[in-house]
């Protein structure tokens, strides 16, 4: 079976790279093809998700939650079946907003194994809940 592809993008004006880099590395080691885009606007995230024909979009949420929510809306409207997950220093009220849009959310303290398990589930590699 072909490897599943995941887009990793950073929303908002946030220059913290360690989190998404470590997550990308864990996903790579789990057999995913991880496309790093870095800090990106909503339009750039959508364009990358389309061009790269990814199976999952991962958002590292930095800066204001409204910006992240706009990115989620744009991806979901252009690619209606695209699963998304999010991580980063996300306060509880913002986690709820993301979860309400159907995202799996990984705030600080989340285990890499849980993130990888989520990626497997969201790309259809495993069906366990």
């Amino acid at each position: 079976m072909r490897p599943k592809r995941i887009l990793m993008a950073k929303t908002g004006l946030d220059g913290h790279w360690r989190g998404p880099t470590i997550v990308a590395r864990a996903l790579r080691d789990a057999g995913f093809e991880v496309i790093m885009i870095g800090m990106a606007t909503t339009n750039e995230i959508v364009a990358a998700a389309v061009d790269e024909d990814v199976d999952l979009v991962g958002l590292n949420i930095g800066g204001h939650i409204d910006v992240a929510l706009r990115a989620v809306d744009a991806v979901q409207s252009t690619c209606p079946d695209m699963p998304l997950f999010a991580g980063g220093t996300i306060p509880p009220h913002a986690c709820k907003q993301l979860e309400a849009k159907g995202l799996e959310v990984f705030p600080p303290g989340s285990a890499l194994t849980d993130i990888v398990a989520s990626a497997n589930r969201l790309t259809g590699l495993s069906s366990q809940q």
Partner: protein
Amino acid sequence: MSNAADAAAPVDFEQRKALARAITSIESGGNQALTLEEAALATPANAHVLGITGPPGAGKSSLVSALLPLALQRYSSVAVLAVDPSSAVTGGALLGDRVRIDYRHFGNRVFFRSMASRGHQGGIAAATRATINLLDADQWPLIIIETLGIGQVELDIVDLADRVLVVLNPGWGDGFQANKAGLTEQGDAFALNKADRPGLEQAKILLEQSLQCLPVERPPSVFPTIATDGDGVTELWHDLAQLLADSPTESSKKRRILAAREAARAQLLSDFETFLNCGGGEATQEKSPGTATDLLAQFYQQRS
């Protein structure tokens, strides 16, 4: 139309999705991939294909980023295929070329696709050739292929591209390195990127001396560049644009021959499976390879 005006034009996502999915099919291989490439090859195509290669970290992606705005002054649109390595252990890959590339203001005029090598040797992916043919048929007038970081001999790009830019750095090697076979024989132009690092003059002289020994009328030029500042990039692009404009369509023919060869190989493998399933597996057991191929030849004769 100016870049700014075009960047404002809405991107046709449905059209791009179709192209992106076709590339996924090609990457996945099998009959669907062959059918797609066959259809692509039946379409008249005229793209210029520029290969960019060199060791890891030399600045290939950063140079693509710096060259893109200049390329868009000459070409109406540009497709970029950027290859990075897959893990031999897990099959996973970290495709990081987009991080370096400021493709962001080009909207419809730039298509960018990251491609993992998926075990293929030679600096590109197995699907790269067919994807070039697909993009060519899709009327992208300039296709830039960025190879993964190569060593001395992973130069498959030479068979696929009209012109190849080799990216090296000051301190890359001494006169012996510059005269070794492989990398310095195959480029049409050379960039010494990160030119603000020590050792530029020596690297340039040694490289130029090596290139002057090539049996060609005009040895490739060497351009010091600092991709992240744009230094030297205009001069480099001027040379590349001229090289592309003068390029014969040889590489397009070569891509077609390689495609035919790939189809023949797939057919042979499928025939061989049939042979094995029709008693060939048992018949060739404990036979020498020579006898086994004779039996295969007999099987072919009986079938025809």
